[in-house]
């Protein structure tokens, strides 16, 4: 099934249709709307974080440590008496920034690599594949840990870790999609009709690939959240006292029996964002690959 936007004659009107289709797709089903809503909520939290947080997330109150959720502290307090709601909200800023910036870098790196490798094939493909596959042979967390040991803890390292662990997979996916398309008939037709390499890439390959790559990138981003919170969980995250969900989860472990509610909010925050991103990815998938999940089967 060919995306209508790829036919050369339908330039501008096709793009408007695409945007409208995406927007409609984002709210088409309850799950899609939920995903979009969740991600928007997190983005708002992250953007407005310091102001949105009811209290100073680093202000300690040693007389009120591990307080259960209540009026003064809706999520309770941690082991140093810091308000958990505020820390979760400010933590959104930290974790989201890392994920978004890292993913953006990954996309900027992966697309050119994947397109080039997939379209040109042959030795170029093999060379790029060698680099990409080398990076892909590192289990995600191991690569992240090695990076942290090199550069030290902190925001920059975690962003680099996201980029380094996301870009190769994305590049591989883009390459695969391009390979598929490059052997298909309409590209042959375009080539036969005299279209140059750039035209083919930008008019025919890119729009077809972009949609599916966006889906994949969203799903990779949700995995990146799990990677960076795992880093925080292992103590390789940002410097204290900056709040970060994985680190908060690690600090709550020892209080499992005494104060289980301390474990709930950071873990739920992580799960919520991952959930939102997955649902968003699913919604985008409906837009760009509608055959999946329609149930039009003969059996």
């Amino acid at each position, binding site marked *: 099934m060919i995306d209508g936007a790829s036919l050369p004659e339908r330039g501008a009107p096709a793009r408007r249709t695409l945007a409208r289709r995406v927007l409609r797709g984002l709210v088409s089903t309850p*799950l899609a709307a939920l995903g979009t809503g969740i991600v928007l909520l997190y983005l708002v939290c992250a953007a407005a974080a310091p102001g949105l947080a009811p209290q100073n997330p680093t202000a300690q109150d040693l007389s009120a440590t591990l307080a259960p959720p209540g009026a003064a502290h809706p999520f309770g307090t941690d082991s140093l008496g810091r308000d958990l709601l505020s820390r979760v909200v400010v933590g959104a800023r930290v974790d989201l920034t890392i994920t978004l910036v890292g993913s953006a870098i990954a996309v900027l790196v992966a697309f050119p690599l994947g397109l080039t490798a997939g379209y040109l*094939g042959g030795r170029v493909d093999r060379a790029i594949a*060698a680099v990409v*596959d*080398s990076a*892909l*042979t*590192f*289990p*995600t*967390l*191991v690569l992240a*840990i*090695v990076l942290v*040991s*090199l550069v*030290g803890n902190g925001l920059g390292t975690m962003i680099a870790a996201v980029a380094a662990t996301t870009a190769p*997979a994305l590049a591989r996916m883009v390459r695969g999609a391009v390979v598929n398309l490059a052997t298909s008939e309409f590209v042959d037709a375009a080539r036969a009709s005299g279209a140059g390499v750039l035209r083919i890439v930008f008019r025919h390959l890119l729009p077809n690939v972009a949609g599916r790559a966006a889906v994949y990138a969203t799903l990779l981003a*949700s995995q990146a959240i*799990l990677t960076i*919170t*795992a880093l925080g*969980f*292992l*103590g*390789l995250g940002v410097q204290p006292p900056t709040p970060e969900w*994985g680190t908060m*989860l690690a600090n709550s*472990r020892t209080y*499992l*029996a005494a104060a*289980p509610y301390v*474990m709930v909010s950071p*873990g739920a925050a*992580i*799960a*919520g964002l*991952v*959930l939102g991103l*997955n*649902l968003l990815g699913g919604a985008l998938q409906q837009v760009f690959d509608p*055959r*999946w*999940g*329609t*149930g*039009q*089967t*003969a*059996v």
Partner: protein
Amino acid sequence: MLRYALGRLLQLAPHALLVVSLIFVLFRLVPGDPAVIAAGLTATPTQIAAMRHALGLDQPLWTQYLTFLWRLVHGDLGTSVTFGLPVAGVVARRVARTAELAAASLGLAIAIGVPSGMLSAVRPRGAWSQLVTLGVIGLLAVPNFWLGLLLMNLLALRAHWLPVAGTGGIAFLAMPAAAVAARLVAVISQTTRASLVEVLTEDYIRTAAAKGLARATLLVRHALRPALIPVVTVIGLQAGYLLGGSLVIESLFGWQGLGQAMVTAVSTRDYFLVQGITVFYVIAFLLLNLLVDLSYAAWDPRVRLD
């Protein structure tokens, strides 16, 4: 096919060399002086210098690189300061445990993921399908260390059904495997469903159905096999998660595998052990990928022509 396989295997060698060299470079950039750590805290500068010489760290970088490669080929990955044993020895002792955990997680995930994916593909609007959808969504979102903690709390601390932690038989393996498998169940289930749905719309399936072939036969003998190809691919892609994702889970449950050794090694800056385990993971991953590619090529002859 054999020629293709051999060709790919030969291609693996330069890949492996490239990655291993990358590891060497990365690890030489790590701050913290391994000679100081290996020599111990009360060592004098003379003793540290002696240790540095013993570890070969006073040689020029090129010499170190070639020595590294030479030793690697002979299975010598250096000595672990944490365990006082050769790194290769530590890896050998612990790899079986990690393999067990990986195999159990994968087995569990396939056992749950494939049937549920199939069920929801066959009846996409049924109650089961909705349940599977929600389950998949939930499982993909939950961080596996959080899930591990919840399981430990509920099944071991409160219900006393399972031992809390340790290494051993099925009882000790259950929770860690479940924690690692959660994500895989979701991914496998999703892929199975999507892929089976796609296959079931193919003309040849419709023709066979029209001809009156029984549903079960149709499903299992004709639809399932091609539908499982993407599942295999996806499992291959998850190999990295299987190997690396167990890092935190092994530590949490006291499962004495490579992952736990790696986490310990990172915090003790056990240079050679981290390097050795990374090399191992990477080689294992390359071989796994090759396996997946070969099975892909076995199905789709076009790929071999590349």
